[in-house]
């Protein structure tokens, strides 16, 4: 898979979030405050696995907060070649 930039991840992730919570998020938006619940979170983890080919844990996906910005940053980080080698 060609390497994705953080912007690529952001664009794809915004579509995934919009499909689940009905809004295109900005960085500060919190997944649960936007209306996401347990079901949507399960769908989010699966969509990330499917779209980016990484199976993240909840604490890897949302390190400090449940915000969109954190989510994008952490997926982009997981896609870096060094992170792949560690998995």
């Amino acid at each position, binding site marked *: 898979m060609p390497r994705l930039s953080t912007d690529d991840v952001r664009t794809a992730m915004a579509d995934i979030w919009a499909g689940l919570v009905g809004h295109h998020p900005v960085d500060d938006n919190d997944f649960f405050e936007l209306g996401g619940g347990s079901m949507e979170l399960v769908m989010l983890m699966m969509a990330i696995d499917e779209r980016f080919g990484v199976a993240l*844990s909840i604490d890897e996906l949302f390190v400090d907060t449940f915000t969109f910005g954190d989510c994008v940053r952490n997926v982009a980080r997981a896609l870096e070649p060094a992170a792949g080698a560690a998995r």
Partner: protein
Amino acid sequence: MTAPGPDPRVVLTLRRRHAGGAPLFCVHPGSGFGLPYLALLPHLDQDVPVVALQARGLVSPDQAPTSLEEMTGDYLAQILRIQPTGPYRLLGWCIGGRVAFEIACRLRAAGAPVGSLTLLSVLPPDGQPPPDAETVLRDMLRSPDLDQHDAKLEALCRFPLDFPALNDHLRRTGHPMHRLNEMSLMRIYRNHHISDRLSRTPLTRTFDGDLLFVAPDRPGAAEFSAGSWRPYVSGRIDFRRVPGGHAEMMGPTAAQAIGSLVNDALHR
């Protein structure tokens, strides 16, 4: 070709960062979700990865299991993909406890060591027939803060469902499920129904290891006792009570107490 990884429809990894030990596998309660176990994370030792097993029927309703044997076989296969050799650490709340017990017995039967088994607020099946569909729905939607009879809810838990009216009632009683749309609510309800039925499967196995058995301390939880699981466990049973009711086991107070008990059990 590498071996298949865990199935993301069933496995929700809650903690992996900085955690290098053997994972604690937590089997979902009746709702089918593993997410409530997030509440344990701040209270469990940092080096313990936490992996939740979720009901397959949440994402794939047509693949929901039809027997307890099928359900535990599915989860066991996922566990073995993540951790090929023991010792295994298992925990389950509510019907997840019944499933965790079964997984522990099957691992032992296969000769694998089980390092710890924790059952939270769950009793062996009592031989009663499963409740009807409307009772299952009503029990699932009864407000956790409200112990008394809710006649309005009772009337709304009838099939076919008047979803808008039911949703409106849940909103007014502050039930956490008021945020769910009809599809999600019905999937969770079906998982409750399936789990409730499967958890009544009579016990045929005995666990030959030690058990940490945690019960709620509320009045009405008197049926829990140190002897509850005795006929099915040949090892030591450590029976503890934690503050709260059955539905509050992943609330902040009980989760803290449970986390500390589980830490002790993992280090024993």
